[in-house]
């Protein structure tokens, strides 16, 4: 996403009711966040709805952002992700995915490849690399696809207890690594 200082300036102007700045903030961040929605929801229509709901919320709640929430991009990502998670959890199991989505998704990198792809190795990527493959895959798949424990058992063909253990231990290791 764009430089954080620029996002902060635009968010501050948005909080003052400046719609032009809000549109610029949207234009800078939407391509990444829409890609995240597609990955989580696997539907263009639902992704469009979630993006609209999330950014309308940003417009009305811009003044509630504060530095304890992290960078502006983190705050925006959280708003979009939680809205997408709500949508995933509320949809019926029988709801179908977009016909054309799977093909496009298959062209993208898998979670393990993502975690090691970045040219600039940031702290998280370095710490994810310290996890074993199962822990890393369970955490990344949960985060970017919104998979539940149960869905992870089906995806990885592993027992529920094992999945929970991978996530728990993986998160503990991540925490230790990021704090060091």
């Amino acid at each position, binding site marked *: 996403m764009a430089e954080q200082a620029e996002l902060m300036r635009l968010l501050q102007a948005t909080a003052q009711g400046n719609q032009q700045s809000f549109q610029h903030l949207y234009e800078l961040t939407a*391509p990444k966040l829409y890609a995240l929605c597609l990955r989580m929801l696997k539907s263009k229509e639902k992704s469009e709805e979630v993006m609209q709901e999330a950014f309308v919320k940003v417009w009305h709640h811009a003044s509630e952002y504060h530095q304890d929430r992290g960078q502006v991009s983190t705050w925006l990502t959280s708003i979009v992700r939680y809205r997408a998670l709500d949508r995933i959890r509320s949809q019926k199991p029988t709801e179908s995915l977009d016909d054309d989505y799977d093909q496009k998704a298959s062209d993208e990198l898998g979670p393990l490849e993502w975690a090691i792809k970045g040219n600039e190795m940031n702290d998280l990527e370095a710490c994810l690399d310290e996890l074993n493959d199962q822990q890393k895959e369970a955490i990344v798949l949960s985060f970017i696809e919104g998979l539940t424990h149960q869905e992870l058992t089906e995806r990885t063909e592993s027992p529920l207890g094992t999945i929970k253990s991978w996530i728990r231990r993986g998160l503990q290791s991540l925490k230790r690594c990021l704090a060091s």
Partner: protein
Amino acid sequence: MNYLKPDLLEHLAAEYVLGTLKGGARRRFEQLMMESYRIRSAVWEWEQNLSPIVENIPDRPVPDAIWKGIEHRINPQTEPKKSTWKNLFLWQSWGALSTAFAVVLAVFISIQTPTEVEQSGQVAIFNGEKNEPLWLVSSSKETGQLSIKAINAQAVAVDNKAFELWMLPTSGQPRSLGLMPVTGGKQEMVLSPQLLSVLQSTNGLAISLEPLGGSPTGLPTGPVLYQAPIVEL
């Protein structure tokens, strides 16, 4: 269960952010977040820890329809003119012009439904912080029908919470008129003669934030977020 025990708090916050904490456990944790800064801080820290994962997702072209939808929802007058009803949203200042709006609405109703010209009723508009209209509530004295239309309500929606509508009688306690819709078309119900009578002697309406399903006590349990005067038609 002691949620402030560091290991447990850390684990629940991480699984909340990850999305693997779900259902009742997720809702309970959200309630605890509202009560404890320490719990919120743990969540924010995990959001910062994990959000860089998103940076590696390749950007995707964004359909123009998304911004158009956002623009319309934060600024309803941008919607293409489709009908007399929607033309009413051209008003720039809802707070100052709500009374005028009610008069126009009355004229509109009389034009649209000539057989009901003699009907009278009440209307109330709930506005948000920036004076944008959130809900339009109207009632008919003759039929007892209460209509609630969500306009921009989705923008102020709160996860796992419901908005409940209350009458504020001149004497006595608030009386519930049910839950407010956040999206979709007009929600309509027919009030009992008793409730209709209370509505006639009501000074205003209020909306409180309640648990999903509404107040468990029959009285507001959450904060009153919005109030609106009732305008006679």
